[in-house]
């Protein structure tokens, strides 16, 4: 029996989230059993590199492709390439502006942006001052999460946004930025909205280094990376888990399904975990993996999955 | 007669130090005008200002009676002035023809370059001058002397009315110099004006018909060469009475200093043997390209000989790199100070100390007092003219740069001194001083091997002379048993 050749094209593999995502693919039962031959292509954070990799996969006649594009719009050209070669593409993590996408498994970044801002605003009582640490300007996640942030902030007109800058998802950059903000706005910052955990952690380090009391700050991040789980456990921040495993394995199930032209039952356990996201015979266009706020109750359990 | 150039009160200073205080001269059509002066007198600075390479601080320049202001060499070229600079300035990765016609490439159709025509006319030019160089060769593959010839050809190719020649013969041989003089005569006959700078007075008396002397950046006097004799000119240049003989005080001992046997390097030199005793000055004469420099390169570990043995103090040594040669007491004053002699961006002091760093840092840290002392000592010994010894050597006049190279190697107190054209670009006064220093070095038991293209120098200084021809020795002769004619004869 011919193996099914599936290619995964994440936008980049240097950061922890996508690393977990890629690792989850390798742990999918169909890959482990050898039914599927999986190759992961590192998009190196460049839309064009991803597009080129699609061409490479088309040349090699892959049966299906899992795609986490760097950008909503720029992903469309890549999908077109695959469609021209008759290869189904399953989106994961980041949407693609294309009708040609077979289906998409991901979590809506606008929601998480709203959720994290809301937690911060609730904690500071809908008054005071906040700062926002943004992702690389123009990246889809940054745009959507900011949209969510702004939506929540609109509900609290008394809250002032003191600063709003990009730290490019980077902990070190966020740390520097926060050090400078703490100087420029002494004793004025109440909340820190970090669009991802790395930057939130950087802000925490800056606060600690300045000798300030973390308790007088509310810091929020998104993604639920390991360091953030530890920080949540220590009561230093809040975070929202974006389930990389579910996004990856869900997409892989859908990819196999598409490759086998419907002759397939999903094998991942994530369908059982998320009752809100039913398989529906693989016919849905969009599968929304729910966001899970990290809490004192579930943090130990989550940490256990990171061994 | 018409004045091609008339200059008055030219001034120039670099960072507060005056290089030229009062430059003056008049160039008539159809004359060869010698510009004389000691090292650092301001000759090159003067010419560079006239060429538009430097700006001036004050003074006036009149070209055919009209006040001019050259913002760049392009302007000077456009008004019919060309220059052979003292410091060679080749574009190494271009062909000879491209170097000669740089900025004036013959055009072909569609705005391209007509390479064929360019190569042809460059080759024609070189052949006319009887320079043995192929126009299609890469500049970087030429020897210093050949590069100098290309610079000469380039200046002549400009068809300029005024040509400045700043020490055009310092790196080339006798034969090529005569070809240059022939060309100068032709230009003179066409009514052009040539400004000729050289420290070789015999050349000046041979080719020039008028002179101007600078001293310490200022005009001293001028006149027709017919009205002055050699001692008179020297007096004007150095500002005091001075005789010109070679100060030779050494007497060879019987102990061998350096012995070379059957040294060969493919395509460069073959079967070179000689032995030099302590206290002896051994001269090597030859035409350019005869392979003299190559001998030194092999001796000093800069090139790998294919065969041969070297003995220092009677014991055979193996030399793979300059550091080995230095460890055995050898020192090499190279012929090309810019390429292999100096770190132009660094200070005079650092350059003087460059070959003695381990000796001056017994504990890894530099002994700065010793560095300063050494630098002061060498500057006095060779009378190096520099504003400060922390100034970069690039700001020194050519002759003074040469003295820095000499100082660097004398500082090492070598046993064997290898000198390749040691007085290149050095003025009459300093030359005498250098001869005395070399001679003293030999008298105190040092061994000297000296390459020179100046017959007077070789004959005046050497105890014995080896003549090189096409990579082989054409014989070795005692000082008394030879003369200029036989040297030239043997070398061709």
């Amino acid at each position: 029996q011919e193996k099914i050749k599936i290619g995964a094209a994440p936008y980049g593999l240097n950061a922890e989230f996508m690393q977990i995502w890629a690792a989850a693919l390798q742990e999918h039962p169909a890959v482990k059993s050898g039914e599927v031959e999986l190759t992961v292509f590192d998009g190196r954070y460049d839309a064009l590199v991803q597009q080129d990799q699609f061409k490479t996969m088309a040349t090699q006649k892959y049966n299906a492709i899992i795609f986490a594009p760097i950008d909503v719009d720029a992903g469309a050209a890549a999908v077109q390439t695959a469609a021209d070669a008759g290869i189904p593409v399953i989106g994961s993590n980041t949407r693609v502006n294309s009708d040609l996408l077979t289906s998409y498994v991901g979590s809506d970044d606008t929601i998480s942006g709203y959720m994290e801002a809301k937690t911060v605003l609730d904690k500071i009582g809908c008054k005071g001052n906040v700062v926002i640490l943004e992702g690389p300007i123009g990246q889809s996640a940054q745009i959507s999460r900011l949209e969510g942030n702004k939506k929540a902030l609109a509900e609290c007109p008394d809250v002032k946004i003191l600063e709003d800058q990009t730290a490019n998802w980077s902990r070190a950059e966020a740390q520097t930025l926060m050090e400078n903000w703490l100087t420029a706005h002494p004793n004025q910052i109440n909340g820190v909205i970090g669009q991802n955990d790395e930057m939130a952690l950087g802000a925490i380090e800056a606060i600690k280094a300045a000798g300030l009391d973390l308790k007088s700050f509310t810091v929020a991040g998104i993604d639920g990376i390991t360091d953030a789980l530890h920080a949540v456990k220590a009561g230093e921040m809040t975070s929202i888990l974006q389930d990389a495993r579910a996004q990856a394995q869900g997409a892989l199930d859908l990819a196999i399904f598409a490759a086998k032209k419907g002759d397939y039952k999903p094998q991942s356990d994530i369908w059982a975990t998320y009752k809100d996201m039913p398989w529906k015979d693989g016919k849905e266009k969009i599968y929304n993996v729910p966001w899970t706020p990290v809490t004192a109750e579930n943090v130990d359990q989550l940490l256990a999955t990171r061994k | 007669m018409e004045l091609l150039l008339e200059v008055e009160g030219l001034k120039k200073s670099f960072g507060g130090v005056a290089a030229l205080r009062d430059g003056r001269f008049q160039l008539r059509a159809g004359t060869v005008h010698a510009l004389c002066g000691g090292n650092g007198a301001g000759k090159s600075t003067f010419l560079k200002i006239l060429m538009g390479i430097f700006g001036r601080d004050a003074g006036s320049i009149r070209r055919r009676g009209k006040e001019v202001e050259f913002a760049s060499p392009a302007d000077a070229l456009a008004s019919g002035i060309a220059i052979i600079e003292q410091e060679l300035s080749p574009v190494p990765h271009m062909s000879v023809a491209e170097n000669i016609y740089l900025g004036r490439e013959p055009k072909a159709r569609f705005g391209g370059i007509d390479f064929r025509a360019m190569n042809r006319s460059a080759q024609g030019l070189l052949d006319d001058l009887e320079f043995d160089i192929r126009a299609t060769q890469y500049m970087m593959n030429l020897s210093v002397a050949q590069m100098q010839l290309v610079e000469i050809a380039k200046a002549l190719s400009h068809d300029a009315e005024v040509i400045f020649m700043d020490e055009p013969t310092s790196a080339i041989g006798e034969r090529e110099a005569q070809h240059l003089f022939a060309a100068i005569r032709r230009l003179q006959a066409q009514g052009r004006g040539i400004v000729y700078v050289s420290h070789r007075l015999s050349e000046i008396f041979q080719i020039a018909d008028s002179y101007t002397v600078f001293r310490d950046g200022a005009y001293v006097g001028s006149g027709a060469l017919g009205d002055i004799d050699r001692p008179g000119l020297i007096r004007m240049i150095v500002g005091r009475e001075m005789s010109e003989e070679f100060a030779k005080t050494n007497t060879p001992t019987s102990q061998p200093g350096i012995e070379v046997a059957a040294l060969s390097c493919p395509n460069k030199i073959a079967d070179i043997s000689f032995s030099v005793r302590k206290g002896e000055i051994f001269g090597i004469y030859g035409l350019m390209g005869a392979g003299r420099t190559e001998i030194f390169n092999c001796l000093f570990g800069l090139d790998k000989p294919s065969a041969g043995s070297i003995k220092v103090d009677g014991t055979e040594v193996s030399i793979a790199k300059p550091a080995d040669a230095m460890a055995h007491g050898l020192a090499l004053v190279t012929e090309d100070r810019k390429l292999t002699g100096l770190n132009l961006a660094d200070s005079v002091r650092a350059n003087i100390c460059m070959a003695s760093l381990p000796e001056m840092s017994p504990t890894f840290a530099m002994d700065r007092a010793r560095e300063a002392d050494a630098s002061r000592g060498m500057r006095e010994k060779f009378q190096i003219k520099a504003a400060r010894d922390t100034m970069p050597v690039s700001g020194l006049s050519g002759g003074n740069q040469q003295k820095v190279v000499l100082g660097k190697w004398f500082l090492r107190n070598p046993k064997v001194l290898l000198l390749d054209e040691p007085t290149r670009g050095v003025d009459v006064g300093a030359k005498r001083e250098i001869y005395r220093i070399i001679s003293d070095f030999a008298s105190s038991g040092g061994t000297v091997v000296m390459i020179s293209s100046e017959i007077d120098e070789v004959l005046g200084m050497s105890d014995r002379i080896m003549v090189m021809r096409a990579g082989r020795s054409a014989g070795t002769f005692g000082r008394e048993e030879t003369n200029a004619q036989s040297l030239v004869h043997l070398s061709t």
Partner: protein
Amino acid sequence: MSAGDNKNSKGWLGSEQRRLLIQEYGIFLAFLILVAVLSVSNEFFLTAGNISNVLLQTSINGVLAIGMTFVVLTRGIDLSVGSVVALAGIVSASFVTSSATAGISGAPYPVALGLGIGLLVGIACGAISGVIVSRFSVPAFVATLGMLSAARGMTLIYGGGRPVPALTPAFRWIGTGNILGIPAPVVILAVVFAISWWILNRTRFGRYIYAVGGNPHAARTSGINITRTQFAVYVISGGLAGLAGMLLSARTGSALPQAGIAYELDAIAAVVIGGTSLSGGVGRVTGTLIGALIIGVMNNGLDLMGIQSYYQQVLKGALIVGAVMLDQKRNYGA
């Protein structure tokens, strides 16, 4: 056997020419070896489709690297190309987008307008760097690093930090179209290469570039206008970066503000691998093209073989160095 040999040596290049080629472009040998190894180890590598892919994937870096060659030959460097790619890409895109949210009012305009404006933006950036370097003697590294930062900032300001999507099909053609079965970007690269080769090897301006890089003093005393020559090479590099930016947006179908990050490294790498010296005056645009192809082939080949990305990075590092080492051996060894 021997007959075969004879035939070979009468191939498309005479043996003398071949010897010269290898001597001049030791890197060409490295390229051939790389291609040979990949052909043997992957069945897809030498398929027509994949060759077209590799060329397509090389086109943008190739265009940038050719522009960079001009600059590096004069002893300069242009770090800003990546940012100029983004700026020109987004500005030109805003003139040819059919999306109402992005773009300036009234877009899409005719494709020629978009192309012209993209080129102009690139040329303007190059001109600014060029003036700073040539007139004010600011080291090229600093001047173009400043432009790297400034052009990226302007990209974000211009687009409000958002991508410009939905480019018109006419515009996208330059990135996705075909001419006689050859992808349009490859044809564009070929044209850029041919013109650049001609300029560098056959015109006065080309000679001036080599002279200014090889010995600025000699160039000046020969009456060459150094300021103008230096200025011109930055304009060329900027213009080609503008072109590359448009190719990039046309290929991806949308202009991203974070496009082109770190492209300068790949462009300079192609130049240096191709044998052009960063100290100026030596090098050939043919070498640059081979350098760009080596990088393209390497990326493509490692992806084809499905080598894990982390190991790919280690391998790439080793391969780049290895290729140049081979070249050095040829040049200086024996």
